[in-house]
């Protein structure tokens, strides 16, 4: 397909040809021609956000929950700079989005023109790739290429900066077919020799462990199906990073919980004590490894990743396999089956015995109360009352995020949207807007902190405008709880500026946003209040008033190895839970 049109028309045509149905955006001078074209058509639905950061997070939520590429349109200068946090967030968590930014006319670039900024310069380190289009005849190809780069290989954000004169200029449109990037052709199939080597190690492992991450989710739902199959075939235990939750079903007995700084005792000690680590689509992030020199000292490591730069970055591995998770898992299963491989059953049952002893410590246990709502209890109840529904969870950043990861049991991929790599407060509410757009009939809940949610609260207005019944479940501890926890543990209890005075009245705030406000502060009322929230067909701000002093455990203090974890005092005493054999390992 080739024909003459203006740059602005090309933008719409290219988005439609890329299968985009929803475009999150905010207008301004440098994108007015594109907005004019949006006005004239009905194929693309534009969702007007209230801040460009919200547009990018919404696109992230949309992309992560649907598997499609998220699309954003913002103006030049402040529009572009407001998008930077979202771009960085998407880069860190490998979320495929394309952000179109307006730019001042080409002849003014470099002139400090009104609302000019060096968008490609500013976004170069926070995008997977970016483009400045200086010729209208390049525009459609560049947009198609942007979608290709965003979605293929390790996904990520791509910016296309479009000067206003290019939007007015006429040129030739080319369709998405036959757009293949000159150089960027990520490798999907893993090296079969390496995969065979991995299988050999797996057959003979005595204390094996699957450690999986967001890469499995990004690889598509097929990867989760294959992962489950391989885990069942081998009988090995499995843990995952924050980003990987849901790839494996949390109710399965082989699941040993999340690992890392706030991971379970059994997951972290298994990482420390395993003799074979099978890392699939995770990247040995510092929240996972803790002290590098003491990280899983006795294990051989297999690492499957589509991004070669993730391999041997922090931790040296023995068998690197570069490829897409689903492809590699498929080959692993095929080879395992073809040689009728069997795990070392005797050793494995010993290993499970050990893990079960660690599990018996009940590291997530907390002391409940009938006077005050414990945050963990709130999330447990939320889980129980929503688990049989078609539910998607987003979060903000802080203690509530970690409790959500610990206590909300994810059974399927793409149900869990959180800001992992960047840890962006304010992510969850706009992300929920995006998720609800992609799944209009599902129950979408942002498990929020009262501090985080104020950073992007204005997107409640977006939710109201588009009648998106998102539920903002605020774990209100009146503190920046995670900051307060670090201050308690590491800075002598000097709570410097981590208490929020003059919080808004969230119930009244909800009403101001044409939404519904619910407050609950008694454990006995909680179930009823949650039921009410679920029933409401409008956006809800749920002010769940919880114990302000609760800390999030277990916790590996930074810079410490996995076996120096701090546990809360509600778990089972180590003496009664750990055998002599276990003590050697701990």
């Amino acid at each position, binding site marked *: 397909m080739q024909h003459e049109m203006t740059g602005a028309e090309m933008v719409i045509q290219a988005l439609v040809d890329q299968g985009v149905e929803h475009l999150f955006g905010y207008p301004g001078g440098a994108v007015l021609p594109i907005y004019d074209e949006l006005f004239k058509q009905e194929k693309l639905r534009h969702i007007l956000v209230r801040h460009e950061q919200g547009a990018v997070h919404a696109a992230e939520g949309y992309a992560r929950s649907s598997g499609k590429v998220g699309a954003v349109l913002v103006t030049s200068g402040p529009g572009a700079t407001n998008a930077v946090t979202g771009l960085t967030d998407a880069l860190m968590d490998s979320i495929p989005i394309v952000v179109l930014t307006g730019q001042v006319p080409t002849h003014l670039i470099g002139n400090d023109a009104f609302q000019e900024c060096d968008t490609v310069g500013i976004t*170069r380190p926070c995008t997977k790739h970016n483009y400045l289009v200086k010729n209208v005849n390049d525009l459609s190809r560049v947009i198609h290429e942007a979608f290709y780069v965003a979605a293929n290989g390790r996904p990520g954000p791509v910016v296309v900066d479009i000067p206003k004169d290019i939007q007015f200029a006429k040129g030739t449109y080319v369709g998405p077919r036959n757009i293949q990037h000159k*150089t960027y052709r990520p490798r999907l199939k893993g090296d079969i020799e390496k995969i065979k080597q991995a299988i050999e190690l797996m057959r003979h492992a005595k204390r094996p462990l699957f450690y999986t991450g967001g890469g499995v989710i990004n690889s598509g739902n097929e990867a989760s199906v294959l992962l489950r199959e391989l885990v069942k075939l081998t009988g090995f235990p499995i843990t995952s990073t924050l980003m990987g939750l849901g790839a494996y079903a949390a109710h399965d007995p082989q699941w040993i919980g999340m690992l890392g700084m706030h991971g379970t005792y059994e997951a972290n000690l298994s990482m420390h004590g395993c003799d074979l680590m099978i890392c699939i689509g995770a990247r040995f992030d510092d929240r996972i490894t803790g002290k590098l*020199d003491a990280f899983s000292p006795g294990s051989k490591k297999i690492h499957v990743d589509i991004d070669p730069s993730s391999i041997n970055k922090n931790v040296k591995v023995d068998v690197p396999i570069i490829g897409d998770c689903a492809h590699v898992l498929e080959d692993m299963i095929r080879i395992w089956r073809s040689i009728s491989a069997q795990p070392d059953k005797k050793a494995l049952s010993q290993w499970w015995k050990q893990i079960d002893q660690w599990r018996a410590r009940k590291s997530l246990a907390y002391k409940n109360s009938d006077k005050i709502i414990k945050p963990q209890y709130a999330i447990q109840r939320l889980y129980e009352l929503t688990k049989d529904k078609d539910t998607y969870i987003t979060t903000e950043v802080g203690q509530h995020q970690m409790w959500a990861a610990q206590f909300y049991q994810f059974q399927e991929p793409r149900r869990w949207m959180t800001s992992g790599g960047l840890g962006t407060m304010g992510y969850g509410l706009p992300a929920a807007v995006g998720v609800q757009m992609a799944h209009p009939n599902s129950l979408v809940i942002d498990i929020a902190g009262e501090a985080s949610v104020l950073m992007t609260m204005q997107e409640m207005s977006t939710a109201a405008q588009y009648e998106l019944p998102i539920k903002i479940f605020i774990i209100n501890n009146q503190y920046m709880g995670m900051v307060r926890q670090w201050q308690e*543990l*590491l800075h002598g209890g000097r709570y410097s500026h981590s208490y929020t005075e003059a919080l808004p009245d969230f119930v009244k705030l909800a009403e101001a946003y044409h939404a519904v406000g619910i407050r609950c502060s008694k454990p006995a009322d909680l179930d009823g209040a949650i039921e009410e929230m679920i029933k409401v067909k409008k956006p809800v701000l749920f002010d769940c008033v919880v114990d302000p002093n609760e800390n999030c455990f277990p916790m590996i203090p930074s*810079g410490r190895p996995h076996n120096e974890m*701090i546990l809360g005092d509600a778990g089972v005493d180590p003496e009664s839970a750990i055998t002599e054999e276990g003590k050697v390992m701990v």
Partner: protein
Amino acid sequence: MRVKPMSKSEPASATHYPAAKSVERVEHRTLSILVDNEPGVLARVIGLFSGRGYNIDSLTVSETEHEKHLSRITIATQGTPMVIEQIKNQLERLVPVHRVVDLTAGQTAIERELALVKVRGKDNNRVEALRLADAFRARVIDATTLSFVFELTGKPEKIDQFVVLMQPLGLVEVSRTGVCAIARGPEGM
């Protein structure tokens, strides 16, 4: 809630991050990078080095295949073997990068640099400068009654040596291109 540490080795470090890893040996490497000659490509490469804290000892860049819009960037860098591997992988991840070759791996690459060296002096110093230039096969490309500009190519160490020798003879200034390099043998990158 009361806190119960599992072991009592060192006190919890008051930081968010794990300590640096124990030190490994640092190696010098010369990388040749084939890239699309498009706007911003050099900024991407340099930004990657500064953003991730890698070293650039020397950098040269120029278009090498005009019809294909290809440029070749030569970077001399240093780092531990793990860092060098990271540098290569990170470079290859950049969308406009075609290939990255470590010219120093396995064999010695041919490395050359060009320098322009200005020397100002009289009498014996002038004679001595000319004599040394001759020994280094440097050419005189500008001369006044007071000064010479020498053009010299060779390995960086040879240029270093020449510059040191010129110092007492009235060295004014030096301009160097940085290393450009190519692998030995019949194969191209």
